[in-house]
């Protein structure tokens, strides 16, 4: 059995601090080259296949902008 995950980012509330990126164990997430209306490079899933839905990113997020989904396959 393996875990497969995905995240949804509230890009308008994301401030691009990158603390989540540093805490992602599977190298799934990165900061986008695009910016939101505040000018922040927001978070996105750079490597979709890597995510295990471990919730580490959402746990450390200071702005609570990440929702995590997980399935067992």
């Amino acid at each position, binding site marked *: 059995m393996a875990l*497969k995950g995905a995240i949804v980012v*509230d890009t308008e509330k994301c401030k691009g601090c990158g603390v989540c990126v540093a805490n992602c164990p599977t190298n799934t997430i990165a900061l986008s080259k695009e910016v939101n209306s505040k000018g922040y490079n927001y978070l996105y899933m750079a490597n979709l296949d890597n995510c295990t839905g471990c919730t580490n990113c959402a746990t450390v997020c200071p702005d*609570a902008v990440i929702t995590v*989904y997980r399935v067992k396959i």
Partner: protein
Amino acid sequence: MDIKDIIKPENKVYGRTPLLKDAILHYCPGCSHGVVHKIIAEVIEEMGIQDKTIGISPVGCSVFAYNYIDIDWQQAAHGRAPALATATKRLMPDKYVFTYQGDGDLASIGTAEIMHACNRGENIVVIFINNAIYGMTGGQMAPTTLLGQVTATTPYGRKAELNGYPLKITELIAQLEGTCYVTRQSVQNPGAVRKTKKAIQKAFENSMMKKGTSFVEVVSTCNSGWKIPPVQANKWMEDNMFPFYPLGDMKDR
């Protein structure tokens, strides 16, 4: 498996607690305040005590805590939150009452109030954010600023001869008979966040057991004040703050 098949309500394992209001936090990117706000809101939600919890916000960056956590709030004068909490808890003993204070608020201007509230053993929770600097006023020296640390009012680094020593106020608080639980935590990685959340939950539970004051220090970052980007600030905190402010429980009874 397509991502659309994963992102379904039944597969949600972590999301924003409804106890957090919809507002965008005014804190700088990466600020520890946001994480601590979030886990306080989660604890209140999970304990089902929204209608029984009164928060008391300080003066400093977190003065606006009331804009984010969806409970009744009192906003105290600088340093006086423990006095407000004292009266609130004594007049409404069935409520969960917590103060949320920074290092300037708690360990400088409010030293008398926090010491005496803890010494009386008020059945309240104190959340103490120690980022070793004054954030809101623009990065001046705090009582907890480390020796050698550069701030707006210690431009050549804090010197003991001029500024005295960093104040380990949590160690002092732990000596007081009125406290039942005194701990120092942090929120820079998932493990630390989960530990801090457990500590905060325990503190809330203690406050209904008439055991005395529960005091949770969270060693935190101030990226703007320190002038260090968020990820590196967490590293700087681990390298410089943790040796002087070691994590762990100082008291638990």
